[in-house]
């Protein structure tokens, strides 16, 4: 048996990409053993623990100029894959469009990690406990993936293939995440962690759209309660056409608790995580609706 306990990486080769096309070329040329590194906050610890067999690192931090952006459009928000957590946290425009980003980014890791970590890296790591995947699921995002033969756009459902697996092919790169903007909506995110900066015990995001005091659509995304982060269609179906009430949140929470599949670990028991899925779903729906109500009032007054 060969097994080592250590935190020092094995030898690697290192390339620095100058633009997206160059990155794709490098991935093509270097083959299966190459990996992109952006913020490096997941990949490098895994390399140190020798849990990966990466031979080539393709550093895409120079692509920040090309892929680091938040563009707020009338119908769509586009975020470049190299946009750093800190930029997401500090963007007032993004917070206005999707308050869930501010809620989530405040509780993702710590400032040091947020200075380097990127939204693209977070999604491509596809860790079931990762917060931004839940945010993107909640907001019904789609992902732009570029390869040598051009771009394709996939929904979050299709992007996320399971724990640590995505739709991004070997010689492809996630370049952008797109979020539809619909009127009358808001969002919120709640996370329970054992300590600041820890991965979620459980977290829940909610996005709600309303018209005339009635929910027109709603989405809930959960993190750390099983591999399925593809949203909670049952909850959407429950909420559509309803007036938001505590009872409604209660029933939505019960659905979240029932339809997740947490595992027991050092962060919590199955029963507790299920409880949290319900409790945090209720809290995030309540907060999202509260955020809509003042603006609705404002509209009417106008």
């Amino acid at each position: 048996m060969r097994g080592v306990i250590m935190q020092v990486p094995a030898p690697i080769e290192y390339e620095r990409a100058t633009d997206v096309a160059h990155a794709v070329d490098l991935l093509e040329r270097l083959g299966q053993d190459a990996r992109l590194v952006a913020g490096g906050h997941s990949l490098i610890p895994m390399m140190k623990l020798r849990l990966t067999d990466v031979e080539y690192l393709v550093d895409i931090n120079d692509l920040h100029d090309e892929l680091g952006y938040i563009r707020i459009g009338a119908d769509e928000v586009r975020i470049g894959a190299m946009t750093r957590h800190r930029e997401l946290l500090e963007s007032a425009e993004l917070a206005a469009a999707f308050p869930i980003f501010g809620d989530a980014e405040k509780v993702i890791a710590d400032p040091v990690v947020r200075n380097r970590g990127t939204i693209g890296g977070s999604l491509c790591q596809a860790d079931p406990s990762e917060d931004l995947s839940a945010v993107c699921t909640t907001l019904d995002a789609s992902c732009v993936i570029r390869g040598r033969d051009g771009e394709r756009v996939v929904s979050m459902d299709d992007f996320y293939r399971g724990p640590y697996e995505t739709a991004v092919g070997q010689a492809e790169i996630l370049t952008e995440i797109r979020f539809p903007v619909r009127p009358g909506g808001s969002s919120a995110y709640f996370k329970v962690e054992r300590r600041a900066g820890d991965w979620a015990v459980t977290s829940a995001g909610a996005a709600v759209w309303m018209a005339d005091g009635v929910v027109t659509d709603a989405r809930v995304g959960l993190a750390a309660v099983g591999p399925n982060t593809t949203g909670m269609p049952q909850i959407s179906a429950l909420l559509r056409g309803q007036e938001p009430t505590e009872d409604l949140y209660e029933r939505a929470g019960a659905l979240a608790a029932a339809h997740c599949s947490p595992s027991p670990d050092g962060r919590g028991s199955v029963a507790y995580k299920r409880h949290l899925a319900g409790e945090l779903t209720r809290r995030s729906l309540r907060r999202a609706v509260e955020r809509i109500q003042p603006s609705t009032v404002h509209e009417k007054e106008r």
Partner: protein
Amino acid sequence: MTIAPEAPHATHRRREFTDNDGHPVGYGRMLRKEDPRFVRGQGKYVDDVVLPGMLHLAILRSPVAHARILSIDTSAAEAHPKVKAVVTGADLAKQGLAWMPTLSNDVQAVLVTDKVRFQGQEVAFVVAEDRYSARDALELIDVEYDVLPAVADVRNALAPDAPVIRDDLDGKKDNHCFDWETGDEAATAKVFDEAQVKVTQDMVYPRVHPAPMETCGCVADFERVAGKLTLWCTSQAPHAHRTLYALVAGIPEHKIRVISPDIGGGFGNKVPIYPGYVCSVVASIVTGKPVKWMEDRAENLISTGFARDYVMRGEIAATKDGRIQAIRTNVLADHGAFNGTAAPVKYPAGFFGVFTGSYDLDAAYCKMTAVYTNKAPGGVAYACSFRITEAVYLVERLVDCLAYELKMDPAELRRKNFIRPEQFPYTTQTGWVYDSGEYERTLDKAMELADYAGLRREQAQRREHGELMGIGMSFFTEAVGAGPRKDMDILGLGMADGCELRVHPTGKAVVRLSVQSQGQGHETTFAQIVAEELGIPPEDIDVVHGDTDNTPFGLGTYGSRSTPVSGAAAALVARKVRDKARIIASGMLECSIADLEWEKGSFHVTGDPTQSVTIQDIAMRAHGAGDLPEGLEAQICYNPENLTYPFGCYICVVDVDPGTAVVKVRKFVAVDDCGTQINPMIIEGQVQGGCAEGVGMALMQMIAFDEDGNCLSASFMDYLIPTALEVPHWINGSTVTPSPHHPIGAKGVGESATVGSPPAVVNAVIDALAPFGIRHADMPLTPSRVWDAMQGHPTPSF
């Protein structure tokens, strides 16, 4: 330092900073002398030591907890171009070095020869040209393991069918390590039989780890020609380590120099001798080159000295009106695969015997069974004062359980049962002689600082609204400053400490200590002790420590013993120098010794203050021409008369989110009585750090294992260190009850907060959960565990 003339407006600003910016000639607040080098990144740690031609050592550790080694193939590793040596247990066995003694008279494998006994145990090592190649080569070693069932849960260790871990010991047929008892079993049983109220509570103090910022490591440099070994090492006890290396490795003691440079935190983790140190010495001897070994964080967490791991049943007997009569406890202690606890030899369970706490009891009894398990060895670490942490947790939880049953206020229950000031020196039911105390004054001060009555009123209001607010108190008494030598030793080395002081001709001084700072501020505190005695400003006194070639012998820093033991030595050696200075002064002033009066820093002729000489004048004269006695220096070894008994009262306020069960520590008041205070700023810093550790232990830390003995807490992702966001603004207070037998009345404070704070936090959480009818829940009180407790499951099965 030049001080610019003050602008008028600066006066106010200065006052604001006097707390931190004093320049006392003696005791008082002053900034730490050592801090400029730390805050500027100029500290010199073991890993900063780089020697010409230095090689790097890495250790292959077992991925499984219990397995017989069938074969080890090192050929591929040896073929690595940058590898200089690969060494296995079989190689060490040929030199008689495969096993070494532990600090508790057990033996521990340096490298495995027969079977692996815990995950992370040292199996082989590689020496290579750089640290990366050394680790790459580890991956090339092929070990064939015959995996055996593991004993991972201490409660299964003595089962008849449990696999025997220590079959290396002659005739060993089970996993029993030692039994220990203290107190009077029959007398205690009688009190319990007749008691009006009896409360029994099971509790687990889980395995935790001190996790110092700097991991363990060393640089070994064996010079073949001189036959001298120099070992830069993360050691809290350089002199004791040197003696042990001499006894184990056979290198003459005078040919060994152990240097403990700046140490990035110890907390007991750096008391033992680890296999890595021995491997590095062997590697340097084999290769003829200096060899560096620094463990990774995972190695530190899985293989080095842990703390606690006590499964306790506590019983408390009392009258209906709340007079506590007796405490009885039965403990199952998990000592891991080798008994590596550092404990004064007469006390196999360390100082757990002080479990009677701060209370005047009629009887007490403890029975303890210690066992071997397939886990890392250790036991005394994480600032525990030789197991007082467990003892204080036991008694302070029990008292709260009793308060719960009697529906009494826990503060008043404590007050009612305190040992009274006039009872000191007080001999406890387990035979410890508490030197001094005035507990009620400290309790009052803490309650006043916390506004205890106001907190209780607020709690009542909040409970009406369904909010879960908890107030927790602990009142601890510590026993620190080991020896005396007649009672206490580590492997036969008596617990006393030396000190040397030399005043240079210009009145500057150097004081040499046997204890070793790991961040406690020795370079400031000890300079202040000498300053207080001689009147030389602390900045004029250099403190030398951590180098066996340049300091007197002593047992080192742990168990909060530096100030109680070496602090006394520093004061006494300074007084000895002062006595000599008096003789010289009498010559200089041409008067009799009896006619001299000492005023801090100078002698003058009684009745004529103009006829005076300063200590600096005397120093110059002592080194000058003439026939007055020469030199101004002295040496001493201090053998403590008794331990010192610091105490304190901590009050913690928490809010528990009823929906998520997340605990937020809102307020924390710590009132400590450590006797005479040398530098109150340093004391508060130590208390605040210890309280943060206490919050960590109470709420988030545990070294957990699965049923196969795999360690589940081998990184800081899984083993959590509290951050500024988890701790409140600390509120410190103090009372001063000097130790009557200590030369300066100081008692030691380094571990008070780690000892006293966990029960305060736990008591607060349990108090918050009172509406759920909960009397106890086990640490760490993570959100999940608190929620489980709220559902009626207070004791998880790990």
